[in-house]
């Protein structure tokens, strides 16, 4: 899935932007350049593993302001910030706002590529979890109404007998429904099913 990951580069200096994108491509990473923060915000799509490389100093919306704006919009994307040389205060602020890492400019490409790969990996798991959740939701839709009732009670830890008496059905029928639920939800054990139920409720 690495191959489909996208690196958003935001820098107002066109030559820096161009050089960065070329570097990323030479390292086998796919990049997308944005000359301004606003441009990036309108181009970004979720459900796609990505990261952002931001220049702190930009006319208009600065890197820090963009970070805050992303937080406000709920864009949960790993951010690597590029700061001017020796601008520690700015770097600290960027980290406080939630940047994953910061790179001093000018820097060698290794540090930059390492940070970008880290960021992509982090987002990979985020996207992975997101995909998993949508699969779980899709599986749950396949359950009948009775099966859903049985699942909701079983995951609270009630015994089959109790579940049966609650729903007015026999313990044997509960066992049959439960087996169907396990199959449809692709859960190998009861603890699998409980974990899935928690994730569905929490949306995580």
């Amino acid at each position, binding site marked *: 899935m690495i191959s489909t990951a996208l690196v958003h580069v935001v820098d107002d200096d066109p030559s820096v932007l161009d050089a960065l994108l*070329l570097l990323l491509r030479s390292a086998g990473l796919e990049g997308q350049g944005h000359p301004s923060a606003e441009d990036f915000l309108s181009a970004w799509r979720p459900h796609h593993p990505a990261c952002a490389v931001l220049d702190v100093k930009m006319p208009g919306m600065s890197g820090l302001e963009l970070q805050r704006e992303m937080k406000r919009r709920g864009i949960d994307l790993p951010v690597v910030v590029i700061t001017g040389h020796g601008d520690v205060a700015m770097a600290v602020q960027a980290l406080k706002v939630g940047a994953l890492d910061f790179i001093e400019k000018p820097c060698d490409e290794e540090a930059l590529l390492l940070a970008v790969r880290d960021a992509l990996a982090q987002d990979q798991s985020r996207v992975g979890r997101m995909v998993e959740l949508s699969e779980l939701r899709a599986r749950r839709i396949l359950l009948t109404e009775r099966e859903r009732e049985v699942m909701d009670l079983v995951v609270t830890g009630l015994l089959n007998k109790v579940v049966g008496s609650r729903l007015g059905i026999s313990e044997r029928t509960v066992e049959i429904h439960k087996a169907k639920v396990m199959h449809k939800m692709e859960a190998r054990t009861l603890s699998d099913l409980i974990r899935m139920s928690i994730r569905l409720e929490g949306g995580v």
Partner: protein
Amino acid sequence: MTAESKPAKGILPYLIALLYVAGYIASDRVTFFNALGPYNITPWNPPPALSLVLVYFYGGRVWPLVFAAVFLSDLVLRALPSPVAAVVVADLALSLAYTGAGMALRRLGVSARLETQRDVIWLVLCGLVFSAVATSAATLCLTELGGVAVENFSTTLFRFWVGDAVGIIVTAPFLLAVFGGRWPLSNLRMVRLNWELMAQMAAIALAAWTVFRVNLTSEFQLLYPLFIPLIWISVRHGLEGAAFGSLALQIGLGLAAILAAEDALRVTELQFAMMAMSATCLLLGASVSERRAAGATVLERERKIRSLVAMVPVGLAEIDGQGRVREANEAMARLARREVPDLLGEEALKVLPGLARLDPHQAEITPDDTDTERRWLEVALAAMEGGGGIAVISDITARKDLERRQHRHQSEMAQLERINAAGQLAATIAHEVNQPLASIIYYTRAAQRLMVQSGGEGEARGAMDKAVAQAMRAGDIIRNLRYFLSRGDAETQSVDLRELAGQVAEFLTVDLQAARVACRLAPGAGPCPVVGDRIQLEQVLLNLMRNAIEALATREGDRRLDVAITGDGESWRLTVADNGPGIAADLAGRMFDPFVTSKRGGMGLGLAISRSIIEAGGGMLDLQSTGPDGTSFVITLPVAKGTET
């Protein structure tokens, strides 16, 4: 104190009137001896003095009282010799004359304190003249209306006049002294009975006795001894002495005349002499008093000057014609690190600190290193008339220290500002050079990676070209900075803004044509001189006009650039206006901050440096307006005064 009508309220006026009338009758009674003729005219008559002083203090409105007193006195003491009409008319004349005398003194501004000889002279003259008038009129009445024999007229008149005149001259000064505030009665306690006073009293008594004893047996008028004690008293005690001495002598003579049962005519002669003596001594006393008052004033002034000289924190010394210290104050002694007496009589150049020469001069000196503590002295020497001078020396070390501290503080501030500016510049250079450096690294690394990838050589070569272009860009930035900074030491001269605008426009001709911008100059009439560095001002104007040309590049249709100069006599306003698309709102407020630019690849330094150049010349560079209709910047610079352009 000159006479003013004293305000009289309540019971006081009646009391004063009663006292006056009582005093009048009493004094008339006491001096009622050696009376002559049917009207009992006496050779010493103090009551007119009472009337005169009363009128002097309370004005002419008291005349009826005066008349009443005169008439009452005649009624009581002389039992109204017939005919009554003669007496009434005579009393009328007397009271009118003495009221006139009092008013004359008021009008003449004679001071109740008899402060000057002039006051005394007027008092004596008024006494003589008005008593002459009064007694003449009264005597005439008495003669005409019967009583006084015609053959006795001149004798009566003379006697009458002498009595009244001597009464006034002897008594009035005393009354004025007592009631006029010069010598209030409360001061009596201050008179100490010393040997001199007793001797003076004894001398008067002796003189009086001599006059009578000797004259009784001789035809030779021996009045002159009387002068001696009176002059003695006057010289010693001034006007007060003369007034009291005269009164004492008069009383002594009166008593002697009564005791000796002296002949009335001889007493009159005596009284005539008394009048002359009294007048003479009063003048003498007044002169002595006046001199003493003047002396006291001088002494008081000198005392004030002395305390002032002692008090001032500045060292003062008087230097005589031989260059020696005649007087010095405490402050000078402290400065010289000696006691005042140790300075007196010494050579000024040796003992007075910091004094280098004796001619008038002013200097600020710091004494040589022999001084344990280094101090600054301000020295001035002023010449005095008749040789010598006054040296004024003050320690100004504290002031000098303060000045030095202030100066040091100022230069520290200037240094700090330079460091600040240098720091800002360094940050600017770092940022501007970092951009291409970063690009160069990225391009080079990318090229290295691409070279080892199959089919990547072409792209790698492109990346290397781009890296070179970025290196060139870094070089450009350094060059640009040097261009701006090379003229760090500005050469200030008078620059004509009008000429400058023309030159810059000409310089930009090619750029203007290439960008199809119509440039219009409205530099006003006549030269517009400012003080500044020509090259720097040129850079500022060039920067503003280039910005405008670049801003106009995105505009469709006509492109205009207007440069105008206006002045109000105080300063010149140079406006650079374009009809470009305007500066983005978020940038407009920060246009003058370093790094802020709306141009791709711009340094964001031009306006910042331009503003610092203009502000260094005491002017202002501001964004006047910006919007979709255009942008205008305005430079304000003070008019260069008194310089050629």
